[in-house]
Structures are given as structure tokens and as C-alpha cells.
């Protein structure tokens, strides 16, 4: 909770895919606000949004999609309207030695290629479906993973010949994977949104607003870009 002894805690609920970037931003925020500690609570966007709607302790909510944020919005727990801050696009990754010799999206259709994607119910899965459809890929994936991290893990472990992941994940994986660029990927993006939560009074309401501002600042943009995030898609 919020300390009375000069120490203040700002609790931020954030989508799990923001783990590294938000950890970095939180440190920056603490440096700029002496006496303030940022507590980061990561989880799946849906869970976090539902918990926020249920009145879970927290001052800021950041989700990986707009639908989840809608759950919190509908529950009336947002202090202000949600605002988009970054976007993310898909890319194809393969194990570093690329055993199946994937060079383009079309290669996924080749016989004997095990590729994995996110389940269509997850934001990344919906995007993947759209992309595969537009590329006319007929071969079904070997598995529909629950989230993009699972897709990445398959590829890193050599269990799949290729996977469709977010660029951020490809960047985070570094040398563990090889990236195969997809020309049309930018057409399909997801949008991350952030909003301060209501119930915050006085000082901490200000802090929440300041944190949201930090997330949307140029300073943060550098952090996000380094992590592989892209621009918010223009509507």
C-alpha cells in the first residue's frame, strides 16, 4: 500500500510481455521520484484487467491489447481513457542453424516443416492467422501455443523449424534464434494501451499520471525501440 512515512509505492499492473521494458522504466521513474518505489505486477493481460476490474490494488494498468483494457474500462476503474503507447509486429524466427532452410513465409507450406504459432484467441495468434491467410499458407501449424513466449521457446529449443513471434521477442532472444524478415508484416500489428486506475487519490493519482506520461514519453520510446517495439498503428 502507500506508505505514510515519506516512502510511497506505485503499483503497476503490466502485461507479461512488458517485463523487461517496464522494469527499466520503473528504475528510471524511481530515479526521478526519490522516495517512490514502483512495484511491478506482471501477468496475462486478461487476468490483470479482470483483477483491476475487481478492485485489485494497483495504480496503472498496461495491457498488450485493447480488448483486455476494455474489460477494465467497462468496470469503470480507469481514471482516464486508455492511451496507446507502442505497437508490435510479427516476424518469423527459426533456430540459429535454420534446419528447414526457411527463407520466406511461403516456406512454411513445404512438407515436413513443423512451424508453430499462437492460438487464435491470443492477440498474437489473431495476427498470425491474418498474416498466414493473406500469404495463402495452407499447411496447418504443428501446435497453437498459448502465448508468444511458448512459440519462441519451441524455436529456441529446436522443437519447431519456425515460429511466428513478435519482433520484440525475436530481439530479446538474440542469438538463440535467426530472424526471417516478412515484408508485409507491418500491416498486421497489435497495440499496447495504458491507463491510470481510479481509486487513487492525491499524491498517488499524480504519480500514476506521471508514470503513464513516462511510458508515452520520447525517453521511453528509446527503451521500447531497443526492445523491438514499433510504432502504434495509425487507425
Amino acid at each position, binding site marked *: 500500500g502507500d506508505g505514510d512515512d515519506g516512502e510511497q509505492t506505485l503499483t503497476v499492473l503490466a502485461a507479461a510481455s512488458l517485463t523487461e521494458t517496464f522494469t527499466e522504466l520503473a528504475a528510471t521513474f524511481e530515479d526521478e521520484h526519490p522516495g517512490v518505489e514502483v512495484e511491478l505486477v506482471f501477468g496475462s493481460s*486478461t487476468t490483470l484487467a479482470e483483477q483491476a476490474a475487481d478492485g485489485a490494488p494497483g495504480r496503472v494498468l498496461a495491457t498488450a491489447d485493447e480488448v483486455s483494457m476494455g474489460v477494465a474500462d467497462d468496470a469503470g476503474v480507469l481514471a482516464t481513457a486508455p492511451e496507446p503507447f507502442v505497437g508490435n509486429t510479427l516476424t518469423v524466427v527459426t533456430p540459429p542453424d535454420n534446419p528447414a532452410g526457411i527463407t520466406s513465409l511461403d516456406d512454411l507450406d513445404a512438407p515436413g516443416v*513443423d512451424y508453430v504459432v499462437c492460438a487464435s*484467441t*491470443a492477440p498474437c495468434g489473431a495476427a498470425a492467422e491474418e498474416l498466414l491467410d493473406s500469404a495463402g499458407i495452407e499447411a496447418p501449424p504443428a*501446435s*497453437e*501455443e*498459448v502465448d508468444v513466449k*511458448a512459440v519462441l521457446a519451441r524455436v529456441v529449443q*529446436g522443437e519447431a523449424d519456425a515460429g511466428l513471434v513478435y519482433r520484440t521477442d525475436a530481439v530479446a532472444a538474440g542469438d538463440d534464434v535467426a530472424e526471417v524478415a516478412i515484408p508485409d508484416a507491418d500491416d498486421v500489428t497489435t497495440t499496447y494501451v495504458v491507463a491510470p486506475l481510479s481509486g487513487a487519490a492525491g499524491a498517488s493519482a499524480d504519480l500514476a499520471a506521471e508514470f503513464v506520461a513516462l511510458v508515452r514519453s520520447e525517453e521511453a520510446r528509446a527503451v521500447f525501440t531497443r526492445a523491438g517495439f514499433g510504432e502504434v498503428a495509425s487507425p
Partner: protein
Amino acid sequence: MTGPRLGRAPAVLLVPAVVGVALLVVPLVTLVVATPWRTLPEHLGSQVVREALVITALSSLLTVVACVLLGTPLAWLLARVDFRGRRVVRALVLVPLVLPPVVAGVALVTALGRSGLIGQHLPFTLPYTTSGVVVAHTFVSLPFYVLAVEGALRTHGASYDVVAATLGADRWTAFRRVTLPLALPGVLAGSALAWARSLGEFGATITFAGNYPGTTQTMPSLIYVALNSDPTVARTLSLILLALSVGVLVLLRERWAVGR
């Protein structure tokens, strides 16, 4: 038969028992109440759900079979045979219990995956197949089974094994005709545990075997995936799983009770 009247169940036992039941049952009831049942037939009719139900039923059944076949001898070994390193084996057998399921899946991948230490030498691949689902479920359920059966075997002690031996029964005969029948309640309890654990398992399954409708997608995987988009659907699906399993349990228990 009602048996001798040993006295009223005392409050000091009844009260915690009722609290325990309440803790377990109330959330279920509220879940049932809070779920829209109208959409149920529609879900039951969908092919994805039907496939997931079949895979769940099949793999949980095979898991119980695997647990009984592998776990019963293992429990017997731990309860009855004095060998060096028994303690360590017993502790190791329990470890998969402690692993978060996803990590259990990761462990399976490192061992039995396509490029796993053992898996790369296997003539067949387990990931992305229904067999892989069974392996993952067995990995997760086996410790539960072994522990329950070992407890039952220890409760009874070895005295009837000794009697069987004096009658010329070697260990296998004694096991088959004396040890196992006497430990039957424990075997049934263990099977129920393993079966239930397998029904609800998804972390290890999805990580090791994957999640493709018709081959590896079980009900819990489907439910988890659904949670990401529409929690209401996920709840409804959970209730289907729940209703079916309660049905099976009640039916089975009826059988056991008669057998006893």
C-alpha cells in the same frame, strides 16, 4: 449393514470436515451459478470441443493405465524392498510434484523433445502427438499415484506377505494375490488422484506436446486458450469438464462401494 454404533461424530471432527467441504464446494457452486448455461449446447456441438473432450478422455484413461502399470511396482519397491539409495529414489520420485507444470514441460522437452538428449535418438517423435500428451500427463500424475499407493502399502504392513511366503508364494505371486488385493483401496485412491490430475493438467502438456485441435488439444488447454479471449466461454467449457468428471466419479465410486 449399519455396523456397531460407535457414538456420534464429535464436533471437533465434524466442524473442520464441514469447513473443508465448504471450502471445496462453495467456489464450485458460485462458479456454476455465475456461468451462463444457455450457450452450453452450442459449445458441446462444436467440433473443437468434441475433439478436445475425446483427447482428454483418452489421454487421462491411458495415463491411469500407465500409472497403474508403472506406479504400482514402483510403490511396492519403495514400500517393501530394502535397497541402497531407497531414500534418494523416493525423494526423486516426488520431485515432479514440486515442479510448476510449465517447468515440468520444459524438463520433458529437454529430455524427450525432437532435439532432446534422449528424444533425438528415439525412432519416433513425441511432441505434437497424442502419445506426447500421455507422456506429459504420466510424468505429472505418476508421483501422486506412487505416493498414495505407497502409503496404503505401508499402512497394511508386510505380515500377510510373510504368511504367503511360508505357503510357497514367490514375491510375484504374493504381490498379485495378497499385497495388491489388500492395498486395493489405496490403488483406487491413487488411480482417482492420477486420473483427476491428468484431467486438469495443461501446463506440462502444452509445453511438451503442444496444442493442436484434434491431436494434442485437451480440454484444459482449450480452456486456457479461451481464457485469453472470452472468459465466459472458458467457464462454460470448465463446467462441461467438471460435470463429466463428477459423473464419472460418482459412477465409479458407486462401483467401488459395492465391491467393498
